């Protein structure tokens, strides 16, 4: 294979230099972020594990019953009992903590960015390709700088998960706000609403189902990152699967995988229905 007789663009070196520069100048910032994120994950984990398993199972079942059909509640109950029975309870709660933290960050960052891009076409046009990039770049690639920034452990896992899972929240928040009919916006303006009032009283309420759909997708994507995150030291079910793969333990791999599936379906159904329930209750 021959390439054009041009010198190779040293993109790799530039990126490395950029990451080095970031680490050099913003290390304290990363330190603070890392500490905070770790604290959040740890407190979730502590709380979930401090509650007796059976109480936790009942709580989650009630939550599923509140926001889903009865079948979702039954699935949650049986699924969680199975996880406990197979001995993956602690790891499942660790994974849940990681996923919740990543999702929480996705929402905290994603919703405002989504609102911003809904209000400003330039922002939207800048952000859209960036979001495409974040979603299509293989997630493993984020692991390397993540480790540089945050060392090994759960924090770089959360970081990679946030980058990978945030786009749907941003996209759907943007879309939801933009889909508010223009005549309603006109009506809000015609009565003298400030931009903030318009957002709080009209756009966000009407965009809520869409935003909830975005959050639901973000949670699912965060969950899909747990195995990858385990490669850099995040614990939980991901680590079990990763270990099973490297040690060719088919049975263990399947068990841990099944636990992830149960967690995924449970989270999906509950959050999906929160969006719908919010809509129904307002009607």
């Amino acid at each position, binding site marked *: 294979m021959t390439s054009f007789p041009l010198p190779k663009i040293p993109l790799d070196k530039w990126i490395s230099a950029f990451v080095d520069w970031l680490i050099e100048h913003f290390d304290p910032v990363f330190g603070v972020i890392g500490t905070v994120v770790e604290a959040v994950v740890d407190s979730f984990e502590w709380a979930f594990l401090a509650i007796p398993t059976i109480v936790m199972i009942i709580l989650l079942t009630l939550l599923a019953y509140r926001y889903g059909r009865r079948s979702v509640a039954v699935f949650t109950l049986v699924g969680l009992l199975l996880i406990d029975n197979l001995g993956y309870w602690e790891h499942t709660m660790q994974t849940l903590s990681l996923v919740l933290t990543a999702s929480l960050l996705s929402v905290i960052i994603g919703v405002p960015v989504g609102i911003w891009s809904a209000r400003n076409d330039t922002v939207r046009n800048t952000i859209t390709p960036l979001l495409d990039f974040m979603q299509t770049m293989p997630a493993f690639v984020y692991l390397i700088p993540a480790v540089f920034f945050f060392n090994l452990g759960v924090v770089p896992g959360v970081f990679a998960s946030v980058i990978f899972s945030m786009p749907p929240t941003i996209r759907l928040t943007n879309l939801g706000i933009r889909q508010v*009919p223009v*005549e*309603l916006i*006109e*009506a*809000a*303006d*015609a*009565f*003298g*609403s*400030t931009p903030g*009032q318009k957002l709080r*009283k*009209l756009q966000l*309420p*009407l965009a809520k189902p869409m935003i909830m759909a975005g959050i639901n997708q973000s949670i699912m994507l965060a969950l899909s990152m747990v195995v990858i995150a385990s490669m850099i030291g995040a614990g939980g079910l991901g680590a079990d699967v990763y270990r099973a793969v490297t040690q060719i333990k088919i049975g263990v791999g399947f068990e841990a995988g099944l636990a992830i599936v149960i967690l995924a379906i449970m989270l999906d159904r509950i959050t999906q229905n929160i969006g719908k329930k919010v809509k129904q209750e*307002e*009607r």
Partner: protein
Amino acid sequence: MIKIKVDSLTKIFGKRPERAIKLLNEGVPKEKIHQQTGLTIGVNRASFEVHEGEIFVIMGLSGSGKSTLIRLLNRLIKPTSGHVYIDEEDISLMNDEQLREIRRKKISMVFQRFALFPHRTVLENVEYGLEIQGMPQAERTAKALESLKMVGLESWANSLPDQLSGGMQQRVGLARALANDPDVLLMDEAFSALDPLIRKDMQDELVELQDKMKKTIIFITHDLDEALRIGDRIALMKDGSIVQIGTPEQFLMNPANDYVARFIEDVDLSRVLTAEHVMKRAEAVSLDKGPRVALQFMGDLGISSIFVVDRQKKLLGAVTAEAARKAVENSIPMEQILEKVTTTAPDTVLIDLFDTVATTSIPVAVIDQKGRLLGVLIRGAILGALAGQYEETKQGKNEVLISELTEEGGKVS
């Protein structure tokens, strides 16, 4: 008193609109400007004044720029050039804060597709304008309920908009616009999305409400019948320009150009024209002149009957030529041969007159409130007017004629 003054207001859509302004001033037509520059003329140097307490209708076909024009008035769309003064304050120069203030207090809007907030109850919708002003909950609820009561929907306060019919939804829209007690109400095709019967009810209701409220209303419509029904004055728009401004009558009687004429040609004139519009000069003789003079007049004018009035021009009745001849022969005073005349008020619309005119032998007299003769309705003239061959008859002319006759009679006696 002038409430709103619009001064050569122009809106051009597209980038660098100043290119089109120059062309507009040179009189280049809209299409040509679009070809040359790619710019679209929304509103072209519109100027008009709206008086306090009137319903000013802006009428035009779709694409004529009327919706743009109304949005320029509360600056939902920012004008390219020109000015809008409300109570002598220039809206086009206001900053966001001042603009919000004027939208909150002085000017509110009703929308074609209602634009009710689907996630809020009827009451919460009506409260909206007050809520964003920071009015306390109890106070704004009371005001909103009052406003809902005005449109007869207070029992629906806790329903959601989509549980209501179209007509009811628009009443909520109206209540919402009235809740903050604005001076000016902008109504953008407010009744166009309703079916015809409901629309008519709403028009009547609006006129009725307006009698109590005395707001200044600017009403957009593409429906000429609606414009004629509710408008105190009408502005007709075409291609972003105002073609004619006037009262409904002026529109029908003196269309400014062919476009206006074509626009109004489908109007059911019998519902718009009144007795006053089609009446002819009334031939009359005063009572004290006696049957001989009356007979003489009828002979001169070639008519078979003539109205009889007193010295104050008050209509007493009519005499036929036959009765007058007999009276002359037998020396009977005029009082005894007077026949009753069917009368009508000048503002009666023609459709209500057809039956009367068709069944009476002596022409129908048009009289004012004091019983004075204003004119006469002749079958041929009514049909002619309906066929569009209207020839203006000024009330003054009739009076001149009657007084001439009276004077003449005076000389004779």
